[in-house]
């Protein structure tokens, strides 16, 4: 009988997820004993050390090169394929569906809609943070449905972020821009 009960609970949970948006309040209780990098340095764990000298500099290429050049001028550029009609961002020199060279470059808006987001309570190297970092996929206005930029949200109460939210790019000043995706500081809600 307990088995049956368990599956019933699971079913109920699934239904709830499907029907209601979940609260994104994090669980800040953590189990276990952590192993810190200091423990490794102090030799508490038997290891052999190697600090690799692995540095790379990737060529941006034609498509991403032009895209980032656009960023420097405060513009979001995309490309268009006349065969499938898609307006794509980030741009590429080929349409991956039609396998043909793209037809032309287009300028898109610096506004868009949040397709999905998450509230990150850890930094990239797993340091805990109280105020979450908010990565989001933003579907860019002027591009085809589903075409977006992966970026960060800002100037917003994390509790108020929602899917479908309209947002606008907050650019660095012209002097600060260097032709990188970080030329946009973050995206803020459109009032």
């Amino acid at each position: 009988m307990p088995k049956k009960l368990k599956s019933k609970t699971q079913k109920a949970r699934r239904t709830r997820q499907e029907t209601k948006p979940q609260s994104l309040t994090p669980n800040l209780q953590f189990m276990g004993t952590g192993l810190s990098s200091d423990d490794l340095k102090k030799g508490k764990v038997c290891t052999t050390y190697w600090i690799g000298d692995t540095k790379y500099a990737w060529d941006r290429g034609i498509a991403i090169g032009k895209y980032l050049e656009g960023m420097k001028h405060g513009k979001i550029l995309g490309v268009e394929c006349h065969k499938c009609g898609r307006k794509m961002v980030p741009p590429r020199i080929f349409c991956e569906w039609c396998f043909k060279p793209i037809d032309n470059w287009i300028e898109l808006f610096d506004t868009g809609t949040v397709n999905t987001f998450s509230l990150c309570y850890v930094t990239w190297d797993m340091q805990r943070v109280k105020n979450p970092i908010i990565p989001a996929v933003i579907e860019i206005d002027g591009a085809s449905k589903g075409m977006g930029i992966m970026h960060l949200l800002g100037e917003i109460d994390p509790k108020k972020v929602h899917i479908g939210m309209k947002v606008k790019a907050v650019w660095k000043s012209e002097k600060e821009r260097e032709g990188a995706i970080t030329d946009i500081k973050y995206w803020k809600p459109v009032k």
Partner: protein
Amino acid sequence: MSDRVGIIGIGATQFRSITPDVSYKELMFEAAVKAYDDAGINPRKDVDTFVTCAEDYIEGTSIFDEYVPDQIGAALKPVHTIGGDGLHGIATAFLQLKTGRFDIAVVEAHCKPSNMLTPDGIEACGQDPIYNRPLKLNTHFIAGLEMNRFCYETGVTYDQCAKVVIKNRRNALNNPIAGRAAKLKLNDFKYAESVSCPLTELDIAQPADGAVVIVLANESKVRALKKEPIWVSGIGWCNGTATLESRDWVYLNYVTKAAEMAYKMAGIADPQKDISFAEIDDRYSYKELQHLMALKLCCSCNPGQCVDNGRTEINGEFPVNPSGGALGMGYMYEATGLARLYCAVEQLRGNAGKNQIKNAKTALVQGWRGLPTTSTAVTILNA
């Protein structure tokens, strides 16, 4: 299962020391467009399976298979990346076609070593982290050790190794896609800087950026497309030991085993008679001679004589690396074996221009994964 496998399309970019104008995706796209045009196919409709070859450390991106589909026409299609030489990719595609489940398979390999700012540090990551890395040696030291023992035991001279470099880089002068062609003289080696004695800078194939795409099909598809294919009649692969402490530095039995596997499949009884020419790994000058010996393609017990008597020249009795090899075209890590295969197909098709060998009917192509590996693959091709 009886279906043969044929190569119906090849595509390659130029191999250049730097390619700042294009991204690796754009390099791959160029090679792919050329290969599909050559095969007369549409990858979105006609290709059933894709195999790409890449090493995450070289790319600087882990789980690299994530980044390959779009630019080769493989979006939403069966695709996977293997950590191996391009010829291992050919073996993988060959097996997939042999299952009868697929009709057309594509193999891609590329390299952009110009994007590696610390190639020595990245290559050092291939060394055993516990036994070898703490010694903090540049990975070329392994080639120095191997060349020393190889020359000591076989009697191959450093001049004979130098002649391999002279031959291959000269051959590359007439190869329009080669990136490291040069006209050298034996005297130039006197001034070559020592890297890991007896290995000098000139003994090492210099890196090049580039991409290669090969289209393969099973026999019924080849017939349906009315293509003149180059048949893959034999294929073999093998690995030796990873340990530097106990490997054989002279006789590469893993290369012999891979070759025997391929010879058996292709029905080759006497490799020297049955094969017209070879495109083999020459990451280091002495490697061409060492590989020739292991592949049973030497005229005598001293492989150095093969280069001394002109036997391996384009107009010689048994041409080796008429394309220029990695020494003449550039070393492209995982794409090196596929570059050899590309040039072998050009030869068998009679498209090698000034480097064309008369009556080239059967080719042997061999790839090695470079230091510190003992990982090799061998392919036999038939016109």
